[in-house]
C-alpha cells in the first residue's frame, strides 16, 4: 500500500483499543460545554473525537481516545472530567 492521506477513523482502526464499555474515562459536563464559544476541542484532538452536532452540542466518542490529554489542557471551561482509562483499558501502542 502506498502512504496516502487518511481519515482519522481509518488510522484509529490500525490501533489497538480495549474499550471499557461501562466506564467512560472522559466525561463532558454539557452545561459548561454549551457555554463555550471557542470549542478548541474540535481542532486540537488528534483523533478528531469531538464533533459538533446540529444542536450545537459537542458529541464525543471516548473509544478512539489516544490519551494524549490535549483536550484536557485546552478545555478553557473545565468542562471535562478527564481520567486515564482503568488499568488494561484504552489504547495499547504496538510501536509507540
Amino acid at each position, binding site marked *: 500500500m502506498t502512504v*496516502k492521506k*487518511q*481519515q482519522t*477513523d*481509518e488510522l*484509529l*482502526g490500525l490501533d489497538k483499543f480495549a*474499550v471499557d*464499555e461501562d466506564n467512560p474515562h472522559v466525561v463532558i459536563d454539557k452545561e459548561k460545554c454549551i457555554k463555550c464559544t471557542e470549542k478548541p476541542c474540535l481542532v486540537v484532538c488528534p483523533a478528531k473525537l469531538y*464533533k459538533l*452536532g*446540529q*444542536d450545537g452540542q459537542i*458529541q*464525543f*466518542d*471516548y*473509544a478512539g481516545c489516544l490519551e494524549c490529554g490535549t483536550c484536557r489542557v485546552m478545555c478553557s471551561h473545565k468542562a471535562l472530567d478527564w481520567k486515564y482509562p482503568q488499568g488494561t483499558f484504552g489504547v495499547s501502542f504496538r510501536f509507540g
Partner: protein
Amino acid sequence: MAGIYIYSEEQPVTEQLLTAGKTLANSLNEKINVIDFSEQDSESFIKKGADHVLCLKSDHPWPESYAQIIADILKEKDPTVVLIGGTLRGKTTASIIAAKLQTGLVNNAFAIEGSGSVIETKRIMYSGIAVCTEELCHGSIVTIEPRTFDAAQDSDHQGDTENIDIQPEAKTITVGNVCPIVHQDNDIATAEKLVCVGRGLSDQNDMKLAEELAEKLHAQICCTRSVAEDYHWLTTDKYVGLSGAKVKPNLYISMGVSGQVQHVAGMRDSKVIVAVDTNENAPIFAAADYGIVGDLHEIIPLLTKELG
C-alpha cells in the same frame, strides 16, 4: 468397512449435511449412511440421498447422551469420515465421540472437499481473519454449522433402513427446565435485510433516513459500536461487530460506516453488502459488493425513493 456417516439431532440439519455428503460421496466413491432416531425421517433421508439409515430407538431426552452409543457404532463401522451437524449440541456430541474414538475433529467447517482418498476441510481461525485448511485423518469427524449448505432435494434414490434398539446411559445427568428462546421479530441476528448506521451520521435526526429506508425494504436497523455505546441512538444489542452481534442477512446496506475490521468481522457473512459513505478510502468499500461514494443525506433518500 468404510463410508460417509452423517448425524444430527436436528432433522433439517441432516438434510443439509446430505448435500455436502453427496458431493463427497461422488468424489470419494463412498456410500452415505445416516444415523437418526425416527423411522419416518429415515424414508425422507433415503429420498434425499442416503444409502443406508441406522435408526436408533430410544426415548432419552438428552441428545448428548447418545454420544457413547454413536461412538460404539462408528467404531464397528470404521467410517472414512463422519459429518455431524454443527449445532451447539452437535459440537459437544462430536467432541465426545472424537475422544471416545481417539480421532480428529474439525468443528465449524465451512467447506469440505474430497479428491481421491484425500478429504480437506476449511474453517475460520483467529476470530475470522484467517482460514485453516486441514487434511483429515481416516475416520475424522467434521461438524458443519446449520445453513452452511442448502437442504438436499428429493429424488428417486433407493436405500435401506436398519433399526437398532439402544439404551443410552445418561451418566449422572438430570435435565430440568427446558425453555425455548423466543427470537423477537427485530432480532438482527436472524434478519433477512439490515440497514446499518455508523458514525458518518452527523446527528440523531439522520436516524430518520435509516428508518425510512428500512421501512421500504422491510429491513431491521443495526449499527456500529460507537452509535450504540457512545451516542446511545440504538440499544447495545443492535450493534454489529467482533464484540457485538454477528449477522448474516441477504442484504446489508451500510450508511456512514467506515468499516473497521472489528465491525466487518460481524457482518461479512452477509450475502450482498452495499456501502454508502463520503470517504472513498473507507475500508467498508473493500468489504462491499456495491458502493456509492457520497453524502448519505443525498444518497439515502434517493435510494429509498428508487426502491419504491
